[in-house]
């Protein structure tokens, strides 16, 4: 899990792990505009420089004058030139980040965490389960799989959100479909007009209800999950019970309050695991093991 040996690890910034690098915002895309209970979501394309990473890792992205927050990378490592961060306005720093414009400076520290090991699943069918903004960390992984399409079997993406308005990256769905992604949508609350459409197939309900709509070949499938803690809990349970996926092939990413991102500040510790260093990607069997002491979700 540890010892990635990435040349661009946190230590490179002047030998001091707390010293960030300054990166420029290249592009800003508003994914979701502020409306009702839906917070603004923005994707920042930030100068990548020589940073190397793998999907599932994150950066401590910061606003000078306010602080740093852990943000997952939503672009694949194969994409040169830019790092993509999809950020929801959740608090002080993330709010300021969503207000950045091209050319503005942000601070970067990382990459942090273990990331997904996609190479371990070569030849398998990939099932992505993404709740709300949980699609952001999975997007890099999905793209990595699509860039090496022939190495994997079926690719299924289940994406659910609170409302249809909160579904992420609708502008990219057509391209994913063209590249062979089987996509299904869910919304906890949805209007008739939305649910009447069939492309992609959809339902009004929880994302776990989509599991009854798909047929998978359990022995050759691996599932990657990201979403709110409750979704991880119930989706992992359901995938095991209904679709017979073993815990070792349910891979989820956790999110926790973090300050340092390098296993020092102590905020993200669950049981004896540091989400920032041992995670944020954990297998369901590891999560169940943690759950004996303290629920990780």
């Amino acid at each position, binding site marked *: 899990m*540890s*010892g990635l040996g990435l040349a661009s*690890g*946190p*230590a490179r910034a*002047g*030998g*001091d*792990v*707390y*010293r*960030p690098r*300054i990166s420029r915002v290249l592009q800003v895309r508003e994914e979701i505009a502020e409306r009702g209970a839906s*917070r603004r979501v923005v994707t920042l394309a930030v100068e990548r420089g020589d940073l190397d990473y793998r999907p599932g890792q994150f950066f401590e992205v910061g*606003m*000078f*004058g*306010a*602080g*740093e*927050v852990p943000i997952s990378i939503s672009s694949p490592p194969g994409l040169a030139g830019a790092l993509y961060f999809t950020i*929801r*306005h*959740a*608090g*002080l*720093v*993330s*709010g*300021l980040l*969503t*207000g950045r414009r091209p050319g*503005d*400076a942000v*601070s970067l520290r990382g990459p942090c965490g273990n990331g997904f090991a996609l190479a371990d699943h070569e030849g398998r069918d990939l099932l992505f389960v993404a709740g709300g903004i949980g699609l952001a960390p999975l997007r890099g992984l999905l793209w990595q799989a699509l860039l090496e399409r022939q190495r994997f079997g079926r690719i299924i993406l289940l994406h659910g959100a609170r409302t249809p308005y909160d579904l992420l990256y609708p502008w990219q769905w057509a391209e994913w479909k063209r590249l062979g992604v089987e996509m299904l949508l869910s919304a906890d609350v949805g209007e008739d007009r939305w649910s009447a459409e069939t492309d992609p197939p959809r339902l009004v309900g929880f994302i776990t209800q989509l599991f009854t709509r798909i047929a998978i070949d359990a022995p050759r499938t691996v599932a990657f999950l990201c979403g*709110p*803690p409750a979704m991880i809990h119930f989706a992992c349970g359901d995938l095991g019970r209904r679709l017979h996926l073993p815990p070792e092939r349910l891979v989820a990413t956790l*999110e*926790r*309050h973090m*300050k*340092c991102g*390098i*296993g*020092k*500040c*102590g*905020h993200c*510790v*669950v*049981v*004896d695991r*540091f989400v920032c*260093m*041992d995670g944020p990607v954990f297998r369901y069997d590891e999560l169940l093991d943690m759950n*004996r*002491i*303290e*629920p990780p979700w």
Partner: protein
Amino acid sequence: MNAAPSSARWLAPEALDPLLARIADEAELVGPVEIEGEVVFVPVRGPQELCRDYVNSLVPPKEYLLPAAERLLAYAVAGGEPTLEPPPAAPERERVLFGVRACDVAGMAYLERYFSGELFGRPDTADAPFQRRRAATTVISVTCERPGPTCMCVCCAGGPSLERGYDWQLTRLERGWLVEIGSERGAALARRHEAWLGIAPPGAIEEKRARVHATVERFRAANPHRVPTMAATRMVSAGRLDEAFWASVGDRCFECGGCAYVCPTCWCFNVVDVPGVGEAPFPDSPGTEVPMVPGGPTSAVRDGRYERIRLRDNCQLAGFVRQAGGNYPRWTCGERCLTRFFHKLSEQFKERMGAPGCTGCGRCIVTCLGERGIDRVAEGMRDVLTGPGRASRAPLKPAAATAREQVTP
């Protein structure tokens, strides 16, 4: 941790003070001083200021490795453009901590291992400020002879004398001080002061062992507090304590955070960016806003100099794990208590850290307003293990006398 072999040297009784005076000339000497009836570790000009008769300090000297507040970064923002200030170029001042007790030395060794990144097999994530300070600090431990009323190091492999973790370990013997040197830093200090040090006479090690044994016996005979580590570790590591048990601990927690602040092995910190010295804390000029409330304005922050500071944080405080998105993993105080005691007592953490998370200093017993020091909680765990039926539902048994009564005359 430096793994140099421990070697035994000798210091004549009358040589200690001149040696300390000499050390104080060369480096910053920090030692126990009595201030308003409490012993604290502060810089001293010479050995004459040191307190000679003390059990332990009010707070652990971890302050000298991990200060309560520390600058990690400084930068300026002008017209929205940041400029990082260069890291401090001046080396950390050499510092010698004298008179540190074994429990606190064990605590420092614990922090040293943690901040080195060794825990994750990632030395590249070593904490630079901590490492800088540790490299410039030499710790001279003095073996305890008389356990204090709340001492429990014997239960936790935290004293009264250590096998490793110290730079120097001094033990008072009949005819002088036995000096054990346990690290490369300690060896360097010995080389600088070679003239004061002799070779330990035959039998010194045996005499030390006998003295330590006598101290342990005094503890066993008279001390009221214990950490039943074996039983507690068994219970907490396997998750055998139910919600009701933790609720009974949490019910007595005032969430003051005192236990973690005085704990020699607690490391958690928060990081905040604050306007630097001489800057107004919040802008009042027109057209600028600082969004303090989620969902508030998202305009840029004000120009000026800022410092990124780490401050001690505390897992017993409600906001410790609160996420900006609204997720709140440890809602109840009982859940937060589980986190704390799991870190201190579990096999899992002991294995990762290579040492128990509690060194038995007993400060949490003195500090806890709710009288839920580690001894009472660990005893509660043992009672669940050995007691009949669902003992966890019963409140923890009252102690014979509270720590406060014993400590305060």
